């Protein structure tokens, strides 16, 4: 019971005490040898590590501490969040990758559009039950042009019957629930208007999930097939036809808040790479010059993220514009950086490394990190789509 006094969350108002408490708590809480376990044990070991880690975080009230208090989080201050994420990185903690949608996309969506019943049930499921969610937006024919999606949901009495296919759903093979966009009105004038947003229980009859092999020797994303899948009408989020608008909220979170932890991990990795390279590859003047040019870019993305958080505190529904800049700054920066470290490591950087899975985007396995950086330049609105958004919506340039 003594530990209760100094749980990190209980002292989060005092930054020094918070940092100390985290440093005290983390070594015992991080699943021991998790990298080795995953490298040797593959997918099952990855799942074990994720569950253990999530339980440790949840027991300490830290799993959802980054949630705004409006979502039922601990409402950590910006400075406390920075400390939290950098201490996680510093201690070599895994990322709670399996729970990404559970911790970001789902609560953001629920908070803005969920009914009180939905909110209570599903937020609680994540907070204390570690329920895994995935995002079922993209389809084979609807990626950047998401609004052209074809998966159909037909109302029949108290249920919707869903038919169609989703693709690229991260963690879909482990998820209990899916945030699902489907077309309820194929006759709507604008394609955006006929879309609705559902909570789909993936254990329902008619759902088939097939993992897709990736160049990193992982299969983190999936195809999901829907064959006459019944969704109770109470699982509609918002109104029928409001799906497109709600999806923007989900995507804003993906473009902004989700990047915060990643940015702090990059900042930590930069310091570590400087230490590791000091006596080896950083001796090369060309590599050194390239390396130092990343410093201001990393500071800039940190400052941008801080600005986004400040805006979100003012208005939990806001931050759209800044989130777009965050996404478009972050993806290319990360990709440039991990491409640079890959090349700077020479032949060493070309040796295959068994996946660590949840070591973040600056795991030290540079080439794996490079491949994973496409998660940020393609997914959730590609660089090109973000550029269209900036130039056409924000800068008022004519549509091409």
């Amino acid at each position, binding site marked *: 019971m003594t530990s209760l006094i100094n749980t990190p969350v209980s002292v989060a108002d005092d930054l020094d005490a918070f940092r100390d408490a985290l440093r005290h708590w983390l070594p015992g809480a991080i699943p021991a040898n998790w990298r080795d376990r995953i490298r040797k044990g593959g997918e099952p070991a990855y799942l074990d590590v994720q569950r253990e880690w999530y339980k440790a975080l949840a027991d300490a009230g830290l799993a959802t501490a980054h949630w705004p208090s409006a979502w039922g989080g601990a409402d950590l201050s910006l400075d406390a969040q920075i400390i939290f994420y950098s201490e996680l990185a510093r201690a070599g903690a895994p990322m709670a990758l399996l729970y990404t949608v559970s911790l970001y996309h789902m609560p953001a969506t629920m908070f803005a559009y969920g009914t009180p019943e939905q909110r209570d049930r599903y937020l609680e499921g994540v907070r204390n039950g570690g329920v895994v969610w995935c995002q079922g937006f993209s389809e084979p024919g609807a*990626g*950047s042009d998401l609004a052209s999606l074809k998966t159909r949901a037909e109302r029949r009495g108290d249920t919707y019957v869903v038919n169609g296919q989703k693709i690229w759903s991260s963690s879909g093979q482990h998820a209990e629930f899916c945030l699902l966009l489907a077309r309820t009105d194929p006759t709507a004038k604008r394609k955006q208007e006929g879309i609705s947003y559902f909570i789909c229980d993936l254990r329902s009859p008619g759902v088939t999930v097939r993992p897709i092999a990736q160049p990193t020797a992982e299969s983190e994303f999936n195809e999901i097939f829907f064959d006459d899948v019944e969704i109770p009408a109470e699982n509609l989020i918002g109104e029928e036809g409001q799906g497109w608008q709600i999806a923007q909220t989900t995507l804003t979170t993906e473009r902004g808040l989700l990047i915060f932890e990643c940015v702090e991990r990059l900042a930590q990795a930069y310091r570590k790479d400087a230490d590791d390279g000091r006596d080896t590859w950083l001796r090369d003047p060309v590599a050194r010059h390239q390396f130092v040019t990343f410093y201001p870019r990393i500071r800039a993305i940190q400052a941008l993220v801080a600005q986004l958080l400040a805006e979100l505190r003012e208005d939990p529904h806001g931050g759209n514009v800044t989130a777009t800049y965050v996404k478009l700054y972050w993806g290319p920066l990360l990709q440039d950086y991990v491409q640079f470290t890959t*090349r700077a490591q020479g032949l060493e950087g070309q040796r295959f490394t068994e996946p660590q899975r949840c070591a973040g985007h600056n795991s030290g396995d540079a080439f794996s990190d490079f491949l994973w950086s*496409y998660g940020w*330049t393609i997914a959730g609105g590609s660089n090109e789509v973000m550029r269209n958004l900036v130039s056409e919506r924000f800068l008022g340039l004519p549509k091409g």
Partner: protein
Amino acid sequence: MDLGALQDSIRDMLTTECPRERVVRHAQHGNGIDRDLWSKAIALGWTMISIPEENGGLGLGTDALALLYEEAGRAAAPLPLLSCLLAVQSIVASASPAQRDSWLPRIAEGAIVAMDAPIGITSPGLSLSRTGGDIVLTGTVRDLLDGADAQLLLLTAADAEGRAYRIMLDVAADDLTIHRETLWDRGRSLSNITLDGLKLSADRAWLTTSEAEEALVDHAAIALAADSVGGQDALLDLTIEYLKTRQQFGRPIGSFQALKHRVADHRTRLEGARWLTRSAVAAVTAGLAHHATEASAAKAQAAADYIDLGRDAIQLHGGIGFTAEYPCHVFVKRAFLNEQLFGSRTFHLNRAAAPALCGAV
């Protein structure tokens, strides 16, 4: 010899025997050389191309080899061509007639030879001493390309007087165990080998010269440049085809100027790399004074262009580019490895610019 016909025949064979599905499957489930494909290449005499006529080969030069490398790069073929053909060159340039007669036929029959990087890129990893009529080798050779697939190893060694040698090791006869280091590029692998007083008959060694080793650097540089050019050609074609067929927003994505301009830039850079590589091939084939500069310039530039295209190719494909079942990643992995093999980017840039920096241009 009609080189155009040679190139066509190589391309035909790889199109039939090494299609994309095969390369993609190898990238997921294979490791190192594709042995069945290698048998077919041997049956067609690909290792004979540069073996002298008096040893039963075609006796062709760098220009012919460059075509072979370009086609292998286009197919992203998991073949040990570079290792074996470098070995042929070393043997022809420096070995005694008796040594040629014992090793060239084995290579012609399909024995895979792994070569360590020429002296100049690294210094010899082995030290050589003599007892009686034998030589004794000690030391470690790092990053031996294709080592785990090889039956023969052609390594560098130095003796106490600083003389440099090439030594032929026979993996089976000399009882060597070679551990494979898996790479991201599954078509190739590296090995480290440590010898602790391995005693061999003296006829396994021959003296090598810095000119001979420099010529091997040129050869490797041209091979990797040509492989990168072929790979870029294939990957760019694949990407352009995708931009033409993939529809979003009711039109082919290739109709978006933002994407069009990028492939136009990549095509432009590829044309530069292609003609620079041909110029390097011509310089080396004719023994022109600037052969080293030109070969290293081609290697550094073509490999960097290939990486830049590769990075964009995945991006321009969207999600499908990030799957193991689609070929993009095979080329991208090959591009990154090409840049590091047989001399880093920095090494080749410095070698390329050395005359300019010395005011010798």
